[in-house]
């Protein structure tokens, strides 16, 4: 197969289509996923080709969407649920943490829950309240769920298929501000990396920068900028948030001795706190400086005109890099 240049939105769309072609049990469900193709057009064209029974426009009720998806999964289907925006996942929170996450455990493995819950997450698109949230830590704290975040078009294509193929429920986070941003070359004949693996996206020797979803790009930009000043940053795209793939992280930290974690979620009890905890536990003697965290501040997501101040950016990442290097 020849390669093509695609956006993240396109990669996800193609990945969904592929999964639906490969397995008739795969269903897509959510608000406006049918004719409209979702507000971000990620499911564009799927209902036309797979019909209303496989691409299901739902009533406006997130608990209902996830709860009925549980039932469909129990019947042997593999539902892929779209939550329209991050901030609207909360009405379904009970079904996710008490039912989706626990069904396999409760049933001693007799009832599988092969469900994917797709959530466009993060900010930076100038949206109104509730449209720019980063709820990943809350799900990662819940045993029974797996949580991943893609950061680029090629990962979008492969990871969505892998998540659908997983027999465990996967919270699938998509950095919405990347949907229609950068394009990348997709080779459909390639062999993807496993889903629950982190990836070192830039080698470096001075500081390890951990990122996922939307902040991978920020981290890479920071690394580029830092290299101009003679600082060598290693950037890891975590990709999987639960489970964490600590192998590459610890390897890197043992080499650099310095870590900056960056995400859009609030710093307090965000993924950065878990990463910092594990790193100091595992690499205590390798650390030259404390693990520093650069995230959304511990305020509600602000009005969009100042969202870029709320969100971690190149400068704040570099500031943390400088601080860690100054130790």
């Amino acid at each position, binding site marked *: 197969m020849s390669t093509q240049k695609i956006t993240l939105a396109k990669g996800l769309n193609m990945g969904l289509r592929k999964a639906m072609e490969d397995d008739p049990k795969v269903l897509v469900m959510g608000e406006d996923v049918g004719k409209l193709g979702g507000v971000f057009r990620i499911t564009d064209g799927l209902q036309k080709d797979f019909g209303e029974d496989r691409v299901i426009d739902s009533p406006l009720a997130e608990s209902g969407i996830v709860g009925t998806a549980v039932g469909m999964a*129990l019947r042997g289907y593999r539902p892929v649920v779209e939550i329209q925006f991050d901030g609207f996942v909360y*009405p379904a929170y009970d079904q996710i943490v008490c039912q989706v996450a626990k069904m396999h455990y409760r049933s*001693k493995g007799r009832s599988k829950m092969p469900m994917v819950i797709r959530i466009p997450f993060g900010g930076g698109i100038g949206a109104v309240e509730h449209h720019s949230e980063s709820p990943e830590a809350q799900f990662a704290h819940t045993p029974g769920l797996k949580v991943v975040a893609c950061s680029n078009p090629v990962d979008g294509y492969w990871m969505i298929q892998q998540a659908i193929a997983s027999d465990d429920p996967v919270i699938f986070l998509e950095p919405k501000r990347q949907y229609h941003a950068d394009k990348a070359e997709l080779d459909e004949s390639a062999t993807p990396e496993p889903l629950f693996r982190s990836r070192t996206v830039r080698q470096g020797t001075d500081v390890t920068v951990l990122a996922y979803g939307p902040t991978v790009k920020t981290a890479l930009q920071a690394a580029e900028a830092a290299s101009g000043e003679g600082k060598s940053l290693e950037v890891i795209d975590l990709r999987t948030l639960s489970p964490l793939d600590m192998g590459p992280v610890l390897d890197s930290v043992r080499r650099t001795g310095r870590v900056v974690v960056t995400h859009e979620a609030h710093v307090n009890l965000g993924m950065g706190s878990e990463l910092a905890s594990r790193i100091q536990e595992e690499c205590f003697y390798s650390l030259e400086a404390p693990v520093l965290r650069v995230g959304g501040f511990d305020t509600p997501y602000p009005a969009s005109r100042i969202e870029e101040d709320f969100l971690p950016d190149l400068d704040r990442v570099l500031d943390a890099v400088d601080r860690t290097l100054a130790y």
Partner: protein
Amino acid sequence: MTHQSEFGPDLAEVFGPSQQDGGPELVQLLTPEGERREHPEFAFDLDDEAIKGFYRDMVLTRRIDTEATALQRHGELGIWAQLLGQEAAQIGAGRALRPQDYVFPTYREHGVAYCRGVDPLNLLGLFRGVDHGAWNPNDNNFGLYTIVIGAQTLHATGYAMGIQRDGAVGTGDPDRDAAVIAHFGDGASSQGDVNEAFIFAASYNAPVVFFCQNNQWAISEPIERQTRIPLYQRALGFGFPGVRVDGNDVLATYAVTKAALQRARDGQGPTFVEAYTYRMGAHTTTDDPTRYRLSDDVEHWKLKDPIARVKAYLTRNGLADDAFFGAVEDEANELGHHLREGCKALPDPKPMDMFAHVYAEEPEELRIQREGFAAYLETFEESHA
């Protein structure tokens, strides 16, 4: 400073309150005195042998309940959710099912579980604290008990949507067409999830029967706190039929549930069945209903006992003799023995079991945690050795 609310229940006057006798809309085919009644819409289509079978079912179900209650009192169970008084509702509903139908229970559906062939011993596990559900839901198409109020009604609706997608609705093949039954209580009817289940079921015309045992109480809260009008009418606002059946009448419950399930299997969509009954016991063995309800009410409902009326019918019409009743009693005793002995013999889980089945595919970090705990536990064994 004691006072009552000043906001009068004027709606109850308009729409009529929920009545102790169920009101005129109640479908009843067997009176508390054991007399058969006809109903223009619902007929009981089985013979007297079947009624004898229902009698047996109810006696055995009650025995499961009293035995488990006793086991709790003796410290063998942490808690038990009693069904006393709700036997007819559960047997009537349970016996109306076909093998291919699927049941989503609450935590109190012991009688339905029995009808599905789940060993009652398996019900004890979660109340004893040895597991969260011992049976395989796929063995008997009987889901695990659900404790979060109302959550299972959405699962039921989704499962029914799956049945539709499997083409197992409205084909006319009696062995293929399937329905789902979702059990829940009167209190549950206030949960958002339950109302969303109504919406999804109506929207997709899903083959699901919403079977509500209105036992008049949600722990200490009377049905009037949840609704000012008869509960079965809730369904009408969502666009599907609701029926109030005498939940202490096993014949009527059977007939109504059967019709509702058939409607679902035929592709005619959801039905709401309100089985009008009464929770004769406490909410659970840890509850103390004397704090919130009158013993008078309980006395009133004793006269409507679901088992007594079938016994009266069978006796009065010479359909069963002492030998029959004695045999059922013997069976109940045997069942009691099975439960008592079986319960005590239920193996305790091992500490390491807590790590089993968290995921279909165990992540490395959990494996490390598991192995770490195993090693930690071994240090104790060593130190005790």
